[in-house]
């Protein structure tokens, strides 16, 4: 019997805190257990040290490296050509694999994701004033904000959407202050999009009586007064597919799009603090999106 293949996960922050990495790591671990891989992970891997980390893992004989952030894309594209025997997989967003035979990506359709958030916020807001708070103004975040605005306008063109950035993905205190300010300006629904710093936004909503959502996994228990619903990434499914494809040796030069239709993610139910009508309205839109009846790029 051969030794089980080694796989490794790469995380920007830590697998013990926040929402994105914690939930992602859970998916990664479950996959490794299910497939019987010999798994390890690296956390706090800055984009600076990513090429070194990737090279080290690959030359150590790690057979598959899963990078849990779109920021690793450049590093993978740089390192992958030198290590044809290692499969590199990215989870989050990727536009192109550059034809690399050992690079695959599970790419979330963040446009659709944003659109749905806009729809649900605009549907739930009583004041017609919602706010989106991002971490740093990276292109993907800006793009998501655009689609949140589209989603809100889809429900009600008169809705005001304010946007702001914390300037950090981890500064809870700043995030909370910004959120508090936005609520004071009249926003009654806050969309957090700042990773670890989301906690501050959710706290502000909780304390000031506004609504918000949980990110990537069900967070209603943490902020019971404020969380209307949570986006729930289906990491189990995505990572499960990655593991299976690796074992089946079908990985390489492919991009799998994760969206509502692929069950890549969903919203937790039932919605809290709002009428059932809101929930029904949002899921009606979701169904239309799944069915491809809404053109996001019009």
């Amino acid at each position, binding site marked *: 019997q051969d030794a089980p293949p080694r796989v490794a996960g790469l995380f920007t*922050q830590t697998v013990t805190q926040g929402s994105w990495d914690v939930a992602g790591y859970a998916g990664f671990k479950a996959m490794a257990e299910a497939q019987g891989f010999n798994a390890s992970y690296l956390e706090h891997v800055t984009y600076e040290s990513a090429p070194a980390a990737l090279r080290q893992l690959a030359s150590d004989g790690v057979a598959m490296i899963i990078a849990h952030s779109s920021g690793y894309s450049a590093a993978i594209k740089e390192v992958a050509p030198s290590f044809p025997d290692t499969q590199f997989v990215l989870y989050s967003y990727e536009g192109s694999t550059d034809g690399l035979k050992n690079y695959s990506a599970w790419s979330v359709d963040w446009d659709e994701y944003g659109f749905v958030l806009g729809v649900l916020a605009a549907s739930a807001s009583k004041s017609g004033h919602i706010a989106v708070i991002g971490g740093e103004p990276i292109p993907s975040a800006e793009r998501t904000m655009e689609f949140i605005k589209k989603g809100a306008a889809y429900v009600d063109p008169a809705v005001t959407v304010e946007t702001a950035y914390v300037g950090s993905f*981890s500064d*809870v205190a*700043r995030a909370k202050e910004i959120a508090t300010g936005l609520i004071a300006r009249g926003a009654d629904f806050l969309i957090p999009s700042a990773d670890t*710093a989301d906690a501050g936004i959710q706290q502000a909503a909780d304390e000031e009586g506004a609504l918000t959502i949980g990110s990537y996994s069900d967070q209603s228990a943490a902020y019971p007064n404020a969380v209307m619903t949570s986006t729930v990434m289906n990491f189990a499914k995505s990572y499960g597919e990655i593991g299976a494809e690796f074992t089946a040796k079908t990985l390489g030069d492919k991009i799998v799009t994760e969206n509502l239709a692929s069950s890549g993610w969903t919203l937790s139910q039932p919605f809290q603090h709002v009428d059932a009508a809101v929930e029904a309205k949002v899921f009606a839109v979701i169904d239309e999106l799944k069915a491809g009846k809404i053109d996001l790029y019009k």
Partner: protein
Amino acid sequence: MDFDAVTIALFLAAGVRLCLPVALAALGEAVSERAGVFTIGLEGLMLFGAVASAVGLAMTGSPLMALVIGTGGGAAAAFVLALGTVLARANQIVMGIGFNLLAIGATSLIRQLVLTNAPPTGSLRTVTMMKLPWLADLPVVGRAFFSQSPVFYLAVVIAVLLWAMLRYSRLGLVLRAVGENAAATDAAGLPVLPIRMGAAVFTGVMAGLGGATLCIVASGGTFVDNMTAGRGYLAIAIAIFARWKPVRVMLVAFVLGLLEALQFQGQYLGIQIATPLLMAAPFVVALIAWIAIGRAGAAPADLGRPFLRGELR
């Protein structure tokens, strides 16, 4: 935007909230620097205070106890740091840099080992908001300065007490003497090292309270790795900028807090200035102010020098 009273009050209040953790730490730094101890490890002390307060909150469930425990954590960490910088005469800069690195790792490890991932629940109102009777009802200032965390009132009281202590008390005289000329203080028969240890631990108390405030009051009890994110270094700059005068420390910190709050206003107003440039603004303003001040009063002459009895200078 309409510059009505409410907006201005909210803006001032945000400035206060944003500056509070840094102001507390800067008050501590001012004291240790007055005594000749350069506490570069302030960032690490704040982190230890923050993690201790989070642990305290998890254990006791009481935000007030959390603040106390955080303060104690900062003091304990400062004691260890001062064993190096004061008693062992380690180079204060090097020690501080090493301590900050260690603190990032150690506090993260503590979080992983002790704190669960679940964010704390329960109300933190007792420490986040305390309306002062009568004063809180004043227009504008009531909302800005008298509907704040009790920690803010405490900070103001501490600043005034420190001012009086440094200016009028024997303790203040001795403290300043140790920073200006440790050898002379020693020759006067006063215990230089214990005084410096005391000052350094007091810095830990303030930095610990600052870190605890950041975690409990400003971040709702959530400890995040490296959550100080440079605030300790900023506090050092504020202490020096304010020429180690406690009341001035509060004012300088408040102005920086306002500048930070102004960034948010800018964002809300959709001012087309990139976020990073807005974030740099307080530092640019501080730099310009520093240049304008120019040759400011001299630093304590023995700042940063380990005390060696009988040293040839």
